């Protein structure tokens, strides 16, 4: 991976939103076995747009605009593992659940409860749980019941500030949250439906020194990367054997900090199935990192393999690898556009 020279080719720039695009999410069942890729994007214009790749022209088109539901910015969106449901989190304090019925999307439920803006929403691997977080400093866990009913299972108050993002572990029912309080918290359930914080990663354990905006897991689920306003990204690891045994909680420890690469806040980070880490930052650039051969298992070393300056005209808010196509990447920006990129070796 290291010896090759890489380039990021812009396949398409998608316009349509009339305000900044905060985030996007690829439909998990798309891009596999010939099914055209599909994704949702959300914006400060209060709408969510659904985009689908045209099978004959291969370009993406806007299939639907989900409007007249949220009354303020839609900050993030997340598909259920089956790809049939879409959850959207909004500054209006609610999380809407949409169902894909043929070519239409219908809002089938609205989750209320947070006292202020909802920042993020995430489904667990099986689709049985949903998590949300808010500026009200809490993380909520919702059970997904038959008939698309949602029941609040737990309200978790441990962060001391605005919670920016929640993300479930790729295979286990362990929840991660990142916050304006500079920490990452890990939440697990003790078997009695009692959720609590099992680990706090703070500055004292080599954690970030400013707001943590996002995190992402590697394919195996034994490594995690976090990104922050402190201009660094950090790699964390856990014992894979302990993780799989599930007996006791296996803590995450710091493996590596990548500093000096970013000059402005890093808003988003993603880890591809092949192991390529992508970042989207406030300097309008997209960067890619891979593990290099100079490191060891306990002290891995990472190198930047590509920096795409001026990837957008303004801040890059979100970067997401396509689940099916390993080298397809999407980015969203304050400039109101979404870009689709292809990573390939320079020919």
């Amino acid at each position, binding site marked *: 991976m290291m010896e090759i020279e890489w380039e990021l080719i812009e396949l398409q720039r998608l316009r349509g939103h009339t305000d900044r695009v905060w985030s996007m999410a690829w439909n998990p069942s798309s891009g596999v076995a010939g099914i055209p890729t599909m994704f949702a994007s959300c914006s400060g214009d209060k709408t969510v747009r659904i985009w689908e790749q045209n099978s004959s022209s291969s370009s993406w088109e806007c299939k639907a605009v989900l409007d007249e539901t949220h009354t303020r910015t839609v900050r993030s969106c997340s598909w259920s593992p089956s790809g049939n449901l879409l959850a959207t989190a909004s500054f209006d304090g609610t999380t809407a659940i949409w169902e894909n019925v043929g070519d239409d999307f219908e809002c089938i439920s609205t989750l209320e409860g947070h006292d202020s803006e909802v920042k993020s929403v995430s489904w667990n691997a099986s689709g049985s749980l949903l998590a949300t977080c808010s500026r009200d400093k809490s993380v909520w866990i919702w059970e997904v019941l038959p008939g698309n009913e949602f029941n609040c299972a737990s309200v978790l108050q441990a962060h001391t500030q605005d919670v920016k993002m929640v993300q479930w572990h790729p295979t286990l029912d362990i929840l991660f949250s990142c916050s304006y309080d500079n920490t990452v918290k890990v939440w697990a359930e003790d078997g009695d439906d009692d959720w609590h914080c099992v680990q706090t990663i703070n500055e004292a354990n080599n954690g970030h020194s*400013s707001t943590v905006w996002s995190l992402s897991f590697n394919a195996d689920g034994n490594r995690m990367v976090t990104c922050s306003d402190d201009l660094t990204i950090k790699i964390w690891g856990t014992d894979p054997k302990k993780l799989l045994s599930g007996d006791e909680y296996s803590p995450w420890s710091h493996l590596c900090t990548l500093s000096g690469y970013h000059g*402005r806040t890093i808003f988003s980070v993603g880890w591809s199935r092949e192991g390529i880490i992508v970042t989207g930052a*406030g300097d309008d650039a997209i960067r890619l990192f891979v593990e290099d051969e100079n490191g060891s298992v306990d002290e891995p070393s990472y190198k930047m393999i590509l920096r795409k300056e001026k990837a957008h005209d303004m801040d890059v808010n979100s970067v997401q690898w396509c689940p099916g196509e390993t080298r397809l990447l999407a980015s969203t920006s304050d400039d109101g556009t979404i870009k689709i990129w292809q990573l390939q070796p320079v020919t």
Partner: protein
Amino acid sequence: MMSGLINANPVVYEKKERRVRSIPANLDDEYTVEPIDQLEIFDHLRDIKDPEHPYSLEELKVISEDAIEIDDSNSYVRVTFTPTVEHCSMATIIGLCLRVKLTRSLPSKYKVDIRVAPGSHATEAAVNKQLNDKERVAAAMENPGIVALVDDCLAPTYVFSK
């Protein structure tokens, strides 16, 4: 509205004389982009009204031309402002006014940082963090009460054409 003000008797300074900008020599080249300088940024901000007093930020010496740093080649601006008192709870509103005015006035490629002058505010780090968190700024600007207050403070800046 005299009772309950944080700083009931602010010191009011004289406004600096406004420099008349010279007309550029080559009027033919309409595509030349003039670099933005400190004075231009200051001109955007000097007439912003203080949230509590009927004076401008310039008159109260909350902002000055010297406290504006600009790196035009990198499209970067940093504005440092000095609240009139150390415990000023209006600091975040003033900072928000500065940010909103610059967002509306400068080309979108500019990166803007806003901070309180070091040592000038009791919760300096907390104020700076909030002012530079764009998600918090965006949410605040969707709050009708805050928008009304900011628009009121910015109103005097739109009176004179620049």
